[in-house]
């Protein structure tokens, strides 16, 4: 068994701040990873839009030099 330690305010603040900052950092990291995936979706969507535009009837004549 470990005894509960009574710690004063100035000693508790770093622990409380550390816990909350760690949590926010974790959520931000998760969101950053999700944002990267969203960026990939956006890129693929742009590729698809490009593909659809090239396939549009008359696009060939338009693109020809």
């Amino acid at each position: 068994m470990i005894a509960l330690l009574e710690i004063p305010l100035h000693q508790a603040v770093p622990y409380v701040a550390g816990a909350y900052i760690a949590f926010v950092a974790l959520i931000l990291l998760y969101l950053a990873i999700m944002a990267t995936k969203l960026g990939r979706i956006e890129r693929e969507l742009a590729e698809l839009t490009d593909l659809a535009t090239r396939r549009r009837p008359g696009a060939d004549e338009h693109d020809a030099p």
Partner: protein
Amino acid sequence: MYGKRLRPLALTTFAALTLTLVLAFFWAPNDANQGFLQKIFYLHVPLAIVTLCGFIYGGLAAIAHLRTRDSRWDMRSYVAIHLSLVFGVGVLVTGSIWAKGSWGVWWDWSEPTLVSFLLIMLLYATYQPLRFAIEDPERQARYASVFAITAGAFVPINFVIVRLSTAYLHPRVLGNISANLPGRFQIVFYLSLISMALLWITLWRYEMTSKHASAQLRALKRALGGDDDEALPRRSAVPTLTIGAGATPTGRGSAGRTGAPR
């Protein structure tokens, strides 16, 4: 589909989390024993409860997947477990910081609540490697569902076993909350629990939206006759999502409109 009303949900979550923080730090009094350090309680305990509920939801979604063979349920289960693992890391980190401040050690192996939570985390840490180890998407989804159900059942059993254990060093929260927590503590705790649940739901829907959009894109790419290599999903731990009516099981070689978001 999942992105519908995501913005108001996200705004509500943000408002709830902000209110919780303000009340926890400026309205709830300091604990007589632990003083200011007890503020970690409003983060750590709701986070742990939401994590465990997320694992249980993952199991329930897996049951629905096995019953219906609808790949959307597999995706729901996968995202729930994935997100709960992220939250679980938060629980372990905040718990260790609290333990260091309160007990003077980062970890105590004689504390059943800590060890049992770690066991649950280690159990679920094998979920993604298990999925990745199985190449056939249909079999992967089926095995992953069986795992999610078994592990999901382990969560409440584990909780009860810890309750029945004799060491009561870890603070007890559920079950006797009205007796243990005075008025303001209780209000902030419940608000924090709601905020954390809202955060989990928002992130779950956010990830589901992303996965669904990715699957739709892949299906569209295939329909437009894009790159053949892209049409066939690479080996992945992420479920193969059926786009469309979607109540049928799908395989990598199936003719159905499937996509494997990564």
